[in-house]
């Protein structure tokens, strides 16, 4: 047979052309997303690492990670251009009284570090995680294990889904109205915890319900048939197996919410605060103090103060540190999940 006329000869057809162009479109879309993502990420890493890392030992800019933000002072001294943070400059002026008369340029927040912001963010994440997990897992257990599937429960589920679609600024306003003003907690860790927890609740509840559903029915029946109560069954023979899924999704959800500025800007975040959170007179004051937080700090340094080459260091440095912290939380949750998963397999 002539090879050109065999029955499987490739032919140019409309379907084949469309196949090719559609495929090219999908490929382009994927690469475009990758390109944008990498662009943002690499830009922050490149510029941020200049602030966070140093060329000489110990290679990490310890001061940036352990000091509070300060104003940066620029001035000429004995023919040299000097850059000093606020505290250093005051000490310098004390040592050299003549320096008080030198004309200076000052840039707010451009010296020192972001230690209080890191602490604040970690506290906000931990607290909201505890609240969101305890409320969310309880609600999921109720919805999935106890509640009869009636119209009311369907309505509750719908409400939870809707909650996931509420913009973060609305959560911020809700937290402000509810916790800050109505409960009188003022701008405080507690108000921030609850606002963030409420925001992440839909994720936690949905993820927990999915994880509970994934536990085979046989485990429940087997346990109940041995004379276990429902709660014994859930605690010993359902929840342990659902926990890896619950934790991973929840922690990822919280890591995402921790990056939100809007919910905390009215409820928990201060632009600047000199005291660290543990420097309180009475232990109960701990819950009722505002904190500095990384996302809000990024917002402040990139939109509330004049922009120049000195503030850029803080902006990118803070963003970079923030990315690392969020990535750390995510990694932690995945490690946790893998450990738990190895223990219970079916």
């Amino acid at each position, binding site marked *: 047979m002539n090879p050109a006329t065999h029955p499987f000869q490739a032919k140019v057809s409309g379907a084949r052309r469309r196949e090719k162009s559609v495929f090219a479109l999908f490929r382009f879309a994927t690469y475009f997303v990758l390109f944008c993502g990498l662009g943002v990420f690499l830009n922050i890493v490149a510029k941020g690492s200049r602030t966070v890392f140093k060329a000489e030992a110990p290679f990490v800019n310890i001061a940036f990670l352990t000091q509070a933000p300060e104003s940066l002072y620029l001035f000429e001294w004995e023919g040299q251009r000097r850059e000093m943070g606020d505290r250093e400059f005051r000490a310098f002026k004390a040592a050299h009284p003549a320096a008080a008369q030198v004309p200076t340029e000052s840039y707010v927040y451009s010296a020192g570090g972001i230690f209080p912001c890191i602490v604040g963010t970690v506290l906000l994440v931990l607290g909201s995680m505890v609240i969101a997990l305890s409320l969310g897992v309880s609600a999921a257990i109720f919805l999935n294990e106890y509640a009869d599937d009636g119209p009311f429960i369907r309505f509750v589920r719908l409400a939870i889904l809707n909650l996931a679609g509420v913009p973060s600024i609305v959560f911020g306003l809700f937290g402000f109205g509810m916790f800050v003003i109505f409960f009188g907690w003022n701008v405080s860790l507690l108000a921030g915890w609850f606002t963030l927890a409420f925001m992440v609740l839909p994720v936690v509840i949905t993820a927990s319900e999915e994880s509970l559903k994934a536990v085979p029915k046989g485990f429940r*029946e087997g346990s109940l048939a041995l004379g*276990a109560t429902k709660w014994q069954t859930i605690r010993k023979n359902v929840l342990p197996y659902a926990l890896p899924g619950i934790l991973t999704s929840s922690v990822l959800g919280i890591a995402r919410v921790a990056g939100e500025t809007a919910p905390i800007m009215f409820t928990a975040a201060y632009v600047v605060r000199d005291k660290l959170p543990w420097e309180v007179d009475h232990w109960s004051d701990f819950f009722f103090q505002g904190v500095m937080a990384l996302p809000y700090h990024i917002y402040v340094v990139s939109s509330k103060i004049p922009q120049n080459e000195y503030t850029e260091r803080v902006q990118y440095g803070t963003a970079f540190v923030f990315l690392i912290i969020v990535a750390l939380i995510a990694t932690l949750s995945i490690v946790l999940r893998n450990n738990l998963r190895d223990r219970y397999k079916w």
Partner: protein
Amino acid sequence: MTTRPPSAFARSSAVSANSPASRLSPAVPPEVLVAIDHVDFFYGATQALNDICLQIEAKRVTAFIGPSGCGKSTLLRCLNRMNDLIEGTRLSRGTIKIHGVDIYQRDVDVIELRKRVGMVFQKSNPFPKSIYENITYGLLLHGRHEKKHLDEIVERSLRGAALWDEVKDRLHTSGLGLSGGQQQRLCIARAIAVEPEVILMDEPCSALDPVATAKVEELIQDLRSRYTIIIVTHNMQQAARCSDRTAFFYLGKLVEFADTRDIFTNPTNPQTEAYVSGRFG
């Protein structure tokens, strides 16, 4: 206090689970353990059981046979009220008495009932825990914690389920590492660890190969002297091999209930005859 004597499954803790007094009730002759009387059962609007009357004797193996959807599993799951877990089900008429106590009565504690009426499921469901933990699961629920005591019961239950020799060296490995037949025997061991009186078996061999099936059937023969066993099966040879009494169900009704030998050799009902001879079903 009412004049009625405390029921075997009463919520009161005064009646201990294993006290001999609670095991025997003067209301019924001792050989009839489970008395099913004119039971109608519904899934929502669908009637699954229609006027079932059946008396199950103690320390005997009773087989429920019948085509799919005939209600035999439903009836089995009524006996330890596992159907309570399914929404929209109700026992609309009739009574099921165990030891003369109506188990659908309001003051019956389902937990206590299920301790006494154990169950083995169609799909073997060992928990994703070690073999040891699988056996001790039920015991720990009921508050027995002494290590020595637990060790004893684990060995006794596994021996009882003819599994001890196969797993004694790996008690602390996962129960899911066992073969299908071993898993099912582990589930039986788990059920007998809490010392029930009745063991319900819902098609325990339907997912097993013939060798594993033979082992489980052998095990049923070993257990028959100590437990009242009710087994649902699709396999008529199995019913013939291991049961004393057989009940044939069809479309939610009890067609015939008699000694197994009579059902298979001399059925009185033509439907039963047609089914056991393989002409339908």
